[in-house]
């Protein structure tokens, strides 16, 4: 009991320090660093959506970039027409959620690869649509907007102000999502992910919860789109790019699926690694990013969020070896069986198992 409380206060302090860092960082950093921090906040929200569908509910979604793009386009259109920003933000959440729900009503009847194919179609259809409806989207040249300038009373520079705006959006999104996945709905997601027959037997409709998960993911994608426009001030068909979706899925697996902290780590990975790779050699960024991705997957198959546990495991194995006891084969799984189930049903998960 004493130990638990101690740990709890440690966590609280850690959280408080994290919050202070988040608030103070932009004041002492260059516009470039602030832009990176803001982008992390943007993609953390999009990644949170991916994690709710894939990590928590165990469904495949390769279409998150389509909702990101949709949100950004709605925001751009609203800003250009001078709509109130709060209304724009609400629309950025509601419209993608509605689209996501419509798609999910049909798609959630499928599973596995069939579902993956449907979700892949979203960015693939979205890009030509964005090019075609140039009155709404600005065509392939994209849409440039200039808004969300720092108000005079704040005494902040634009990059700082925009960072705070997207940070607030991200914090609200994370708090709501955290409560969601820890509550009744989260338990329903987990059971749908584990075994749909069991879920049905318990009175949980897998279909309804899958649709719900997709709707929430699309909503978060749309909100991330709004944040994206706040930070980048530009959107084009490239925003919907299928590669963004794939990279988001990779970042989710790397951060740690079904984990809030993992989502944040994944977003940091998503934004920072290309920058680091560019610092090493700009002509070889793809190669270096790929190598880092493989390294993380081999060393931490459960993602960056599992780093503390992994370290404990390794040190435990070491002491086992010293005492001469042969570690049972299932010890890594056994160690984590107390934690909520975490392996998403995607090809990457199979690789994880093989890697182990």
């Amino acid at each position: 009991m004493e130990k638990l409380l101690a740990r709890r206060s440690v966590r609280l302090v850690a959280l408080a320090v994290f919050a202070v860092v988040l608030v103070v960082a932009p004041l002492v950093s260059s516009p470039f660093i602030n832009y990176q921090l803001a982008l992390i906040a943007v993609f953390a929200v999009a990644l949170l959506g991916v994690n709710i569908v894939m990590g928590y509910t165990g469904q495949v979604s390769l279409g998150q970039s389509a909702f990101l793009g949709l949100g950004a386009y709605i925001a751009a259109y609203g800003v250009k027409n001078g709509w109130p920003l709060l209304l724009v933000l609400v629309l950025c959440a509601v419209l993608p959620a509605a689209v996501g729900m419509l798609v999910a009503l049909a798609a959630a009847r499928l599973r596995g690869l069939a579902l993956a194919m449907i979700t892949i179609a979203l960015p693939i259809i979205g890009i030509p649509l964005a090019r075609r409806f140039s009155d709404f989207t600005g065509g392939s040249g994209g849409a440039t907007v200039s808004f969300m300038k720092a108000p005079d009373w704040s005494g902040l520079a634009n990059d700082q102000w925009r960072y705070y705006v997207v940070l607030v959006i991200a914090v609200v999104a994370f708090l709501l999502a955290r409560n969601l996945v820890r509550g009744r709905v989260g338990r329903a997601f987990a059971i749908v992910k584990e075994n749909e027959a069991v879920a049905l037997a318990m009175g949980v409709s897998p279909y309804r919860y899958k649709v719900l998960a997709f709707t929430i993911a699309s909503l978060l994608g749309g909100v991330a789109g709004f944040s994206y426009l706040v930070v980048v001030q530009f959107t084009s068909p490239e925003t919907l790019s299928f590669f963004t979706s794939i990279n988001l899925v990779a970042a989710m697996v790397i951060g740690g699926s079904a984990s809030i902290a993992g989502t944040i780590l994944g977003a940091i990975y998503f934004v920072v690694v290309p920058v680091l790779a560019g610092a090493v050699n700009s002509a070889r960024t793809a190669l270096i990013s790929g190598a880092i991705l493989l390294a993380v997957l081999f060393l931490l198959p459960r993602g960056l969020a599992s780093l503390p546990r992994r370290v404990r495991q390794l040190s435990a194995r070491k002491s086992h070896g010293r005492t001469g006891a042969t570690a049972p084969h299932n010890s890594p799984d056994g160690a984590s069986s107390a934690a909520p189930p975490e392996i998403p049903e995607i090809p990457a998960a199979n690789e994880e198992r093989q890697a182990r």
Partner: protein
Amino acid sequence: MRNFHKTTRVTGAVAVLGISALLVTGCTRADTSGTGTGASAGAAEASPGITDDSLSLGISSPLSGPTAGPGSCSVAGLYTYLEAKNAAGGFEFGDGKTRTVKLTYLDDVYDPAKAVSNFRQLEGDGIFAYVGALGTPTNAAVMPVANEEKVPQVLLVTGATTFSKDQKTNPWTFGLLPTYFDEGAAFGKLLADAGKAVTVATLAQNDDYGKDYLAGFQSAIEGSDVKVVGSATYEPSDTTLDSQVTELAATKADTLLSAVSVTPLQVGVLTRAQDIGWLPRIFLPSNTSTPATVIEPGQGTAYPALYSTSLTKVPVSPAFADDEEVKAYNAAFEKYGSKITTTYTPHCAWSYAEGAILEQAFKGMTDPTRDSFMTALHSITGFHAPLLLDGITVDTTATDKPAIQGIQLVQYNGKGYAPASKY
């Protein structure tokens, strides 16, 4: 209960710490920005990125991903020119000093958000100007930031009209290349000048680029005997254009305007049309007309004539092997540019010429400031940059046109391109 008090106390302490940190650091940023404006207030005070013996430039282009070929070349050509000149002693500036010019290049994977990020990074590193970046969406995303921060974003490697047509609104942005509209118009003019009835089939990308291309073509053939008998479009994500080619072949048009910007698709067009026995004269856009990557794999020699447009001599073509400028380029590229890419696309030659335009601007710079640089850059007329074909000159004085004007129509002669005078 005791623990509860403890945690609230801890949170309180952290909060106080945070607020005081906020107050302290809040001043820091304000101070730096204050000195920044103070510095630029002095008339001849140097802009960031320039000292008495050096100047730093930045570029962000796609160096990985599907557009990596042209993107790498847009860096490699410029890098080659700058490094060769640095090795030869450096650049002479209008203020009498000689400086070496350093180029920092970053990869944006053709992603607008990444391009803005790179721009911010380069700006933070203290570049003097952002030059020669490739890509329409990426440059469009950077444009408002560059103009807000008053950083030159110039000689951009893109054929979109956006970057040069309104230099009053965006005084810090300036394109390098003739637009797609101009290119389409050049083809149209050749046909219209033929003075006889010609039927044309068009195949264009279903977006602004394709539309610009066709609009230029249409404007040039208006009122002539040239008639468009069939049109088809495609998406860049298409894997084959066989059905479009078959549809257009049914028109039996004399000429095909194949404004396809994706290399493998253009090769597919060339092979498909001859497979089904349709042998029109073909117009290829400048970005998909390279003999080694398009015409040879597409067996283009089967057609009665292949036209394209060109701005520059082609360094990899034997036709220009004895040209002095080409020799200098090839030697320098071998030494510097090949570090970045070894595959030639026209962008290598364009960005090499861009280096010479920059040199010209440096010569006119009387103060070590960005303002002086922009003034000098916009005062170049009738300049012949190396590798540019005869008749294509640099004129930077128009406020609604890119730096390079004029397009040379060329015809494939079995080995390389030679100037085409008539249809």
